[in-house]
């Protein structure tokens, strides 16, 4: 039994306990999957606050539908499918997606702890290079927001670091090869647009 299988078996045990009414067992499932669920929602809705709400809704819905989970697939895969449907519904109701993307937390404000860490100058990197890199980052972030939804979803989900391609494939309901193609295509489109802005393609 691999590590993954072992984790899946443990998830299954928790699911069975939760199905029997053990809310704490479901709480443990929430703890284990909160990051994957949150980032899947974030890839879709673009705003951490909205993603948090979607994640809550997804977990509550999953609990209510727990009786329909038979264990044919991994719990996380099943949960991510619910999350994605919730996130798509939320995105449809959001008319501010573009604005959220443009003012996305990481693009230009630089107030987050992550940004502050990123701004610590690294050795061997001149100040001019740092400024150019920052500008490039802002442009890339902005251009990601202009990608077609299908390409952007695939790119962000793949870059979230929490989902396998198989999970992404089942989550968004597209074949595995299509998911990989969308990621590559998103990168190609981004590089083409960056090249048009004057950045070196190669």
């Amino acid at each position: 039994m691999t590590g993954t299988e072992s984790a899946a078996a443990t998830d299954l045990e928790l699911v069975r306990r939760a199905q029997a009414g053990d809310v704490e067992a479901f709480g443990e499932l929430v703890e284990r999957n909160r990051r994957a669920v949150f980032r899947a929602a974030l890839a879709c809705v673009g705003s951490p606050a909205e993603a948090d709400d979607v994640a809550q809704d997804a977990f509550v819905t999953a609990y209510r539908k727990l009786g329909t989970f038979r264990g044919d697939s991994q719990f996380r895969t099943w949960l991510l499918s619910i999350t994605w449907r919730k996130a798509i519904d939320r995105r449809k109701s959001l008319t501010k997606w573009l604005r959220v993307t443009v003012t996305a937390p990481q693009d230009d404000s630089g107030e987050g702890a992550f940004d502050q860490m990123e701004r610590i100058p690294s050795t061997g990197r001149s100040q001019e290079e740092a400024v150019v890199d920052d500008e490039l980052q802002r442009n890339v972030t902005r251009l990601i927001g202009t990608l077609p939804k299908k390409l952007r979803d695939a790119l962000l989900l793949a870059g979230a670091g929490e989902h396998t391609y198989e999970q992404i494939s089942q989550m968004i309901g597209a074949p595995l090869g299509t998911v990989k193609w969308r990621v590559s295509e998103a990168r190609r489109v981004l590089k083409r647009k960056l090249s048009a802005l004057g950045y070196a393609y190669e």
Partner: protein
Amino acid sequence: MNNDEFPSDARPDSPLDRAIDRAVRKMMHVDPRAGLRHRVLARLETAPPRYAAFFPHFALAAGVIAMLLLVVFLVRRDGGGPAPSSASSTARVGVQATASPAAPPPEASSTASANATPQPPSPPRGAPRAATRARSEIIRMPQVANVFGSRGTGVTAADASRTAPDTVFTSPAAAGEAIRIDPLPASPSTIVQAQPGTEAVLAPAAQLVNIKLDLTMTDQREGSTPRARTVTMLLQDRENGRLRSDQGQGNARLAVDARPEVLSNGRIRVLLTLDYRPQSADGGTGLPFNLTQSVTAILEDGKPLVISQSADPASNHAAVRVELRATVLR
């Protein structure tokens, strides 16, 4: 659980690819707010159990099926004559529905009478009907004085099988009088099983009162006057409420999840999750820290309570005090 960022066959090492990787990482490597588990479990507390959520639908469906089967039964009981008009079917459904412990309002009775009166008489039932009644089942019905009102309203409550063969309405005139219903040919137990289902077990009910939550956050920087902000939420007893206010990354942000519960002694228990980033005095970027807390507190009705008072963990140059007041609106 990582795709190694992107497909290996598409993994390039150009500066643009690295820039894309970094941008995606920065966008996506964000963690959910603290207390997600607590918030989810708090919402689950208010979610009805699965069987309870399922039961009303089941009861409703069973009731509808039972009604349909009754209609079919009554139509067949008319003895193979021409199919009754939709108006007569409607009248029968109405009569069956009103034959419940709750007496119908006068309008309902008159409507049923109006629907029933113009029915054309059906052909008299012949001898074959008697054979089909060889087996019958008696179901005690609740005592109803006269669901159609007085006898002078036009509908005669009589023995349907003898004096008015085409009339399917029978009104139990005396206490304890039973209605005889032939068993349904297909599944006679369906109707019988549906009866106890209508007496559903009620879920534990919350009080039908609103509770006003006043959440006051007072933040202060060193050398400046305290700034207080009050957020008011109106929630029903044992219902969750959410409030989100976000000026964008780096600016003031407020996220509140709350659930009040009125206790038997009149106090109010409040489950509260708060994520608050204050705004600076000049309206620009926020104070250099967030306040995130999950707390359950018991409050006196209408009396404020300071539920937290915290300082900037790094410099102690800024502080936030959170005060909560719950008021039952009766």
